């Protein structure tokens, strides 16, 4: 089975959020008729002061929040695990339609497009598309 994946190189991210913009425009009901990063299935977590830039792709919906939450330390600064979490989760607004929060947003790799839009238009080269074979 062919698995589609997006490889993230956080060191190359410029934090421009073009990925969020194009994702939202591509998935608009009438393609490209609107832009709205809050509808995007990708979110760039940023902490400029500490040079942390991490694109996070929307993963599965969960109806229950985590019981234990870990922390991640980068360059001596501690972050809550939620900052890098892919889930559409009851604890936050991220990865939900802003005007219909009951609808979870999940990355669909842009369906039949040869490349996901965020990968295609990441001019910094932080996102690359990789297919890999996995036994089904």
């Amino acid at each position: 089975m062919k698995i589609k994946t997006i490889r993230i190189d956080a060191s190359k991210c410029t934090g421009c959020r073009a990925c969020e913009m194009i994702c939202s425009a591509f998935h608009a009901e009438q393609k490209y008729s609107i832009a709205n990063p809050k509808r995007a299935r990708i979110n760039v977590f940023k902490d400029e002061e500490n040079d942390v830039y991490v694109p996070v792709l929307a993963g599965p919906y969960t109806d229950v929040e985590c019981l234990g939450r870990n922390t991640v330390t980068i360059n001596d600064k501690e972050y809550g695990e939620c900052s890098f979490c892919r889930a559409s989760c009851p604890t936050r607004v991220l990865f939900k339609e802003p005007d219909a929060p009951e609808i979870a947003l999940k990355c669909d790799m842009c369906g039949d497009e040869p490349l996901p839009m965020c990968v295609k238009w990441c001019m910094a080269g932080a996102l690359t598309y990789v297919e890999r074979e996995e036994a089904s």
Partner: protein
Amino acid sequence: MTYAWADAILEVDLSRGKTERSRLGLESYQGFIGGKGINIKLFWDRVPPEVEPFSPDNLLIFTAGALNGTAAPSANRTTISYKSPLSKLFSSSSLGGFWAPELKHAGYDSVVVSGKSPRPVYLWINDDHVELRDASRLWGKDILETQRLIREELKNERVQVLCIGVAGENRNTAASIQHGIVNCAGRSGAGAVMGDKNLKAVAVYGTKDVSVARPAELIQLRDSVLERSGPQRDWWRKYHVTGGFSQAFVDWGVFGNVHRMPEGVGFENMEAAHADFAGRHLVREPACYNCPFKCHALLSVPDVGVVGVKCTGWWSFMLACKIPDIAFSLKCYDRCVKYGLDHLSTANRVAFAIDLYQNGILTKEDTDGLHLEYGNRELALVLVEKMARREGIGDVLADGVYEAARRIGRGAERYTSHIKKLEIKFHTYYNTYLAFTTAISDRADTPCAGSAQMSPVGMRWDMEPHQYIKEGWWLFPEEWERYLYLDHAVDYEGIAEVAAYGEDVKTLSDLTGICWNAAGFVPFVAIKPNTHVRLLSAATGMDIDQAEAFKLARKTRALIQAYNSRLGLRRRDDTVPEKFFQKEVVGYQKEKGLVRLDHGKFDEQLDRYYRLKGWSRDAIPTGEALDGLGLGYVRHDLEDRGIL
């Protein structure tokens, strides 16, 4: 249906603590497009010229460009306009980043702030929910801490914040409004006006869609721009790592009243030192919203931490204090950023104070016992802090070199370096094109700040002219290609034409919100004027061509000129400090020998420029020109006041 625009403004009356959403009225404002255009129109309609900068009646207007929030690349500039406490003229400061697109997504084109709050507040805009919140615990905090605390208080790490630091709170006329780690609306005291209003910050979070008129066309244009964006990305990389510093800055680029960096201070190999420093400390080149370029540099500076810098931020204090050490320069710069201070004006003021002291005009009695001298690292940091907090000598300097000289007297005026009271950058004005465009700019500022455009000669960087044209990078009219072969550092030919045309290019950026870095500044412009206008048409449905768009840019520029004419702005102000006409120095190209500006040639170009703009020889827009731009009401006003 309205495309691209929200057709809404948020009115904020700080005196009464009231906020109200109202219609912008595109039928009246569409001709001003957005950003600076909407700001000057609101200003003309609402702020009589006699209103003082620190009056509650002065407005502080934050406006998005028409294209912000759409898919148009690099459309992220916020334009902030106000009557400047430094120049006492209508002035605008703009910044990139993420704020203006967020404002559009919250459903507004513009935030118009009037009045003065009785206590420190910040404005919180969350779509239709708007409130003024207590900012007493934020008062006194630096700009990074302020943004962090606001995000924590609102429990939302994606909130975009504009804020002031201590300098703005203390109404230092070099105070800026800041955003993120590197974006800064500086130069003419925007932060001082915000501080005077007791407004610490404006935080915004928006979740609404921004619609566009012709989606397929817009995306196709966007794609073509991005496909042409490679050379400019490479150019920035080169700029950051190796080519950013020019030895010419050292030869000419000294602040204060000296004309050359003294020999033996250690600036001889600064280009190499800069490249070495950048190579060791550059950690990332971040970008603003939806921009394929990366004109900022994040540096990990010893003893300071991560510093975000662009363009002149690297060198201002190094040159002002005559200390050949980039780490020192960045330390002072970082201090300015955190206090919310324009580093160029502040560095200029430091050099001015040292000059006065060295020449016996200031003594220890005036300087709180400080001995002011070049080459003193600690002193620079002490003076920056004193200015930010208006303590002792810092209080005098916080009003700018023009006002400070008046207050000090004793001939201090001879040591000032300002244009229309705005302190000059260290970039030298022996360069004829730079001097001219700075003189005519709507903000007395060098290209990339006011309305002026870079020299086409400077733009081609190190590419041969014929190759530059062949590859399609030339953004001026074809018949001017010969100007590429001139040296506009010394030649005057064509300067007025290029400056007038360049102003249209630059002003268009100030209206659409597309950053001028992408649309006109660097050698490999991905968004040439024709593409720029097509992006505007596709997004808004305006359907205008380049000539019509440039006419609208001229309309905005003429209205700014008319407004400032009412404040006494005349031809005599459109110049650079006299010393650049008097003293000869070695030119950018040393083989060309000594250079200085020429009054006769400069004036000739000024006449040509005014004619091209439709202004009188005294820099006042003529009645005919105003009528032709649909500004008949402005003509009547100027006639009623006896200006026309």
